[in-house]
């Protein structure tokens, strides 16, 4: 009788877990594992049968100029958007932590772009940066008499990725700022008092206390921004559609291109596994580095 009661309770518990677990397995875990499996085959939509071909897809991936370019572009984007975002967000958070009359309104303004879809923000900036004379930025520059500065911001292969990074930083810096602000508010004020007594200047106080104690927020911001950077797609699609040529194509562009335009499923799967491995490696390195920094404050 007691056992029956117990069994009933156990079943009731598992019924609560089941929907989440089943859906997760069917729609995420199983397809992800299947990608690894497909990556070792020559599977494609046009074939009825497929066979194991070992690591051939991986060898080809690393010979494919277009894919290598997309990996380089993605790393460049992830690294520089993360660096810039954090380099701007820290001073911004410190400034907005001061006793300012309009600090809440200012915070709201700086955070706002994050709320909008990356696709629409990308299109908005492609209007502003467009190369033709009616492009807003070029128009302004001409009117100001700065005639050497107007550029084909999104069409010049040397500039396009930099413009894409600018837009990403423009959109996400406010978000990083909010995380830093929350962290700043948790730094005990006594610490600043004590370095004041020691006669330290503002810069030293920043270096020895603020910067050091922002370690947890920095870990989160750098990690999430890097991972997000590796998945970038919407903004680039709207801004440059990967062009000019494939100067701004990210890894996701390559996966979409080989997986859905050319129907080379196995090849695209191999690329997605490469993407996972890169994200895993970089996250592990970053976590190790940043957790050491966090240990230093404890």
């Amino acid at each position, binding site marked *: 009788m007691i056992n029956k009661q117990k069994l009933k*309770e*156990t079943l*009731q*518990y*598992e*019924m*609560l*877990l089941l*929907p*989440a*677990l089943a*859906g*997760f397995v*069917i*729609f*995420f*875990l*199983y*397809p*992800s594992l299947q*990608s690894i499996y*497909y990556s070792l085959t020559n599977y494609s939509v046009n074939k009825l049968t497929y066979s194991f071909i070992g690591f051939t897809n991986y060898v080809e991936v690393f010979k494919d100029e277009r894919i290598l370019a997309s990996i380089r572009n993605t790393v460049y984007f992830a690294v520089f958007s993360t660096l810039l975002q954090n380099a701007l967000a820290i001073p911004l958070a410190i*400034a907005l932590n*001061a*006793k*300012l009359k309009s600090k809440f309104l*200012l915070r*709201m303004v700086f955070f*706002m772009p994050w*709320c*909008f*879809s*990356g*696709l*629409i923000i990308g*299109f*908005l*900036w492609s*209007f502003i940066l467009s190369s033709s004379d*009616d492009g*807003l930025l070029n128009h302004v520059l001409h009117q100001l008499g700065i005639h050497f500065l107007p550029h084909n911001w999104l069409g010049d292969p040397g500039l396009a990725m930099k413009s894409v990074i600018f837009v990403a930083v423009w959109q996400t810096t*406010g978000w990083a700022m*909010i*995380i830093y602000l*929350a962290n700043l508010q948790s730094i005990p004020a006594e610490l600043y008092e004590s370095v004041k007594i020691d006669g330290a200047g503002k810069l030293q106080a920043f270096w020895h206390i603020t910067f050091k104690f922002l370690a947890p927020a920095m870990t*989160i911001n750098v990690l999430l921004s890097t*991972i997000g950077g590796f*998945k970038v797609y919407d903004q680039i*699609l*709207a801004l440059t559609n990967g062009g000019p040529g494939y100067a701004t194509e990210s890894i*996701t562009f390559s*996966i979409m291109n080989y*997986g*859905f335009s050319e129907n080379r*499923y196995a090849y695209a*799967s191999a690329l*997605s*596994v490469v*993407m996972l491995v890169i*994200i895993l490696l970089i996250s592990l390195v970053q976590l190790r580095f940043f957790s050491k920094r966090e240990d230093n404050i404890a």
Partner: protein
Amino acid sequence: MKSITVSTGASRKGIVGNVVLEVSLWILALVILIPFYYLVVNTLKPAKDVVARPMSFDWSTLSIDSYIKAFQDMHYGHVFLNNLITTGGAVILIVLIGSSAAYTLVRRNTKLHKFVYYLFISSIIVPFQMAIVPLFKIFVKMNLMNTLLGVILVFVFTNIAFVVFLYYSFIRTIPYALEEAAKMDGASVLRTFVSICFPLLWPVTGTVIIIQSVAFWNDFFVQILFIVSPKYFTITRMIYANVGIFSTDWSALLPMFVLGMLPILIFYVFMQKSIIGGITAGSVKG
């Protein structure tokens, strides 16, 4: 007397410093605001002026005709409804099954449950791109291609791991003793969870609702993968399709961008405290 003058001198310097800081921050804020300003200005004038004079603004030619046209071209009411269905459906589903799954994982706590928990959290880092090619095939087999239900399911199950993780950390802090009395009275597990545990989870539920609503509402990637017919387009997907049709006819497109941003802007203005709080809570835990 002397010390007083010194201290007021210092604080006056502080006040001046703060005013300078505040003014510079507002100048910097223009970098954020100006693009939105020109976006809106260029939707309120005759089409030919958008190209010829993008920076000008003239009250005498003010017109909202472009919005009326954009509203119709986008089938705004329809795409808005699709957005509401996918975002609303996915958020409700993810809250219900995410919280209940986390509840079982905390309360049962066997080796197997620990394994499931670690399976969830280690998948958080796996990019959705890993799953898309096989998922495409699964969707075709299950007749989920080109359906709103399919979009909802992808939304829910590519984010469920993170949501379970948020709930798990919170439920662990709720003492089991609270539930014991209800259990003694013969309440079922479900009933105990719904009536005693779930109401205590509001802080997490709020965070989940806010983070996921914004993410689902703005999604484009899932739509482009799994939705083909305009009947099921959401706002971003429709805007993308229209950019294809109108090419760079900015006078037709800019009002669509504004209409696309408007719902989330309204949500942000009214909910900004909760949004910022939710983002902070969600990422500090994650």
